């Protein structure tokens, strides 16, 4: 029987209303995450959803650039933010110009992207994340990865893995193998599009020697345990050494979550060094990710190394529900968990994490804004 409907008022494609049952579950996740972030001294910030387009466009967002624009009453072009990293870079440059780094911020904010709406992918997406400003590699990267794992453990995600790569690796490889400038962008784009066949064809047409072409095709497909870091080709030694330095400094519980991935690139342009993504067998797409953006702050006038990550709350929610039911995308039929090294603990119960993660009155030191 068709339910009797009186009136439907549409909302834009890729957005949705969140009703109390879902809100309760989402709130449990975000409260837990907030507790972990605050315990690690990350102060929560809000910034406007609308920013001047000219300010946001100081950052190289590549494929994640803002998709929605409006005019204000003075005719200025405003854009809905597509992430929180760029607004926080702006905040640091304009409100913390003289503050002693490192600065630690966390956020829970809706961002807006012109994506094709699908499972776990909204045009208005709720992100939770941290930014650690003024802490260079490897220490800063180690801290970000540690907070990331503590956060995921606290919400009770069991089977996740962190893919760790370096955004400078493939460009360094192309540079040292004398790939012509004009085809470098094409090759990198093929890698970002996850198109190894396209990369292979471009390499075949590039006039490179067979060995060089084979190396450029094979190295970005190396991923797995620490063994992928051995016998790296000379131009990749620096980024690979950086990855090893990070890994050595991680707690064993964090380190065993890491999958090294020499081909990991993200579709956001401002990353300069280590990049990472969160995978869970309960979901067919990454739950979140992040990396180092050591040159972004300079574009806003304060040159500081930085690192951060963002988690897609909807995706995290779907993955948690999938693990709970044991029916995630790759789960039902998967023997991957026994395949991979270091099947990790049972994950802490969200309830207990809740209690310990609650911000206390003494809570965070936060970062005191100048003239705020």
């Amino acid at each position, binding site marked *: 029987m068709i339910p009797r409907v009186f009136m439907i008022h549409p909302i834009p494609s890729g957005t949705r209303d969140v009703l109390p049952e879902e809100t309760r579950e989402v709130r449990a996740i975000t409260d837990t995450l907030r507790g972990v972030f605050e315990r690690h001294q990350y102060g929560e910030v809000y910034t406007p959803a609308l920013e001047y387009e000219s300010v946001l466009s100081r950052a190289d967002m590549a494929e994640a650039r803002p998709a929605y624009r409006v005019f204000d009453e003075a005719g200025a072009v405003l854009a809905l933010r597509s992430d929180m990293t760029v607004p926080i870079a702006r905040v640091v440059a304009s409100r913390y110009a003289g503050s002693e780094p490192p600065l630690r911020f966390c956020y829970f904010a809706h961002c807006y992207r012109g994506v094709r709406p699908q499972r776990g992918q909204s045009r208005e997406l709720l992100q939770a994340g941290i930014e650690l400003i003024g802490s260079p590699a490897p220490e800063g990267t180690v801290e970000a990865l540690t907070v990331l794992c503590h956060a995921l453990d606290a919400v009770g995600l069991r089977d996740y893995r962190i893919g760790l790569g370096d955004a400078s690796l493939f460009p360094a490889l192309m540079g040292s193998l004398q790939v012509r400038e004009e085809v470098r962008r094409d090759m990198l784009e093929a890698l970002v599009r996850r198109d190894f066949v396209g990369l292979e064809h471009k390499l075949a047409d590039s006039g490179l020697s067979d060995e060089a072409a084979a190396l450029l095709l094979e190295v970005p497909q190396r991923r797995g345990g620490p063994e992928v870091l051995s016998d790296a080709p000379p131009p990749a030694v620096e980024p690979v050494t950086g990855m090893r330095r990070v890994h050595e400094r991680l707690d064993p519980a964090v380190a065993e979550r890491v999958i090294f991935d020499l081909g990991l690139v993200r579709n956001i342009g401002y990353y300069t060094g280590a990049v990472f993504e969160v995978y869970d067998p309960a979901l*067919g797409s990454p739950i979140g990710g992040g990396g180092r953006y050591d040159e972004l702050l300079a574009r806003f006038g304060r040159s500081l190394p930085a690192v951060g990550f963002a988690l897609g709350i909807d995706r995290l929610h779907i993955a948690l529900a999938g693990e709970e039911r044991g029916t995630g995308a790759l789960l039902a039929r*998967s023997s991957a968990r026994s395949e991979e090294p270091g099947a990790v603990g049972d994950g802490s119960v969200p309830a207990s994490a809740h209690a310990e993660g609650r911000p206390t009155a003494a809570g965070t030191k936060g970062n005191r804004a100048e003239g705020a």
Partner: protein
Amino acid sequence: MAGIHDLTIAVPRGALFEGTVDMLARLGLDTEELRSNERKLLFEDIGVITMRPSDVPTYVEAGAADLGITGKDVLLEQAAHGPGEEGRDVYELLDLGFGRCTMVLASRAGPDPALEALRRLGVMRVATKYPRVAAGHFERTGRQAEIVEVKGSVELAPLTGVVEAIVDLTATGDTLREHNLIVREEIAVCTARLVANPVAHKLKAGPIDRLLAQLRRLSAAGVA
């Protein structure tokens, strides 16, 4: 489940089916039921699910299958075609070589009616099952085209005067010749491709790389 290395593979019904099943058989999979039972969709004991070729990227992207085989034509049609647009988020791992066809622009033999339309009217009408590939091609080559999307036999459209040209896949050229159509431009060569779910590509790296190595060996030996 006794699939290849415990992987789940999305197999396309239709033109690529034979080539795909032959390949799976050479990899050591028992494909007898797959060949004989056309109505069955899920072959859980061998880790295979079957579907239309154009659905393969959808199922692989969602993680319902770790790997899939589909045509480059399907991937091109579902790829991002402009800034800010998103394509299917799957890895394209290997050109499998079989199912080779060409995406072409074709029109009726004799003086090219598409050229005439373009010259006199400034725009040509083009029928196709690949509206995004066609639109992208005309945009790149700086010509105005009105794309008419059809689901069935594309050859019918120019013969009835609905359009001046078509963009379609051709393997042998027989269908085009039968309908008195000739190839005016080649847009892309399309073969079968192996695609992978981005999370499976990381979490099942070992099995996927073993399968890739086997396929490369077969291809080097000239049988795949």
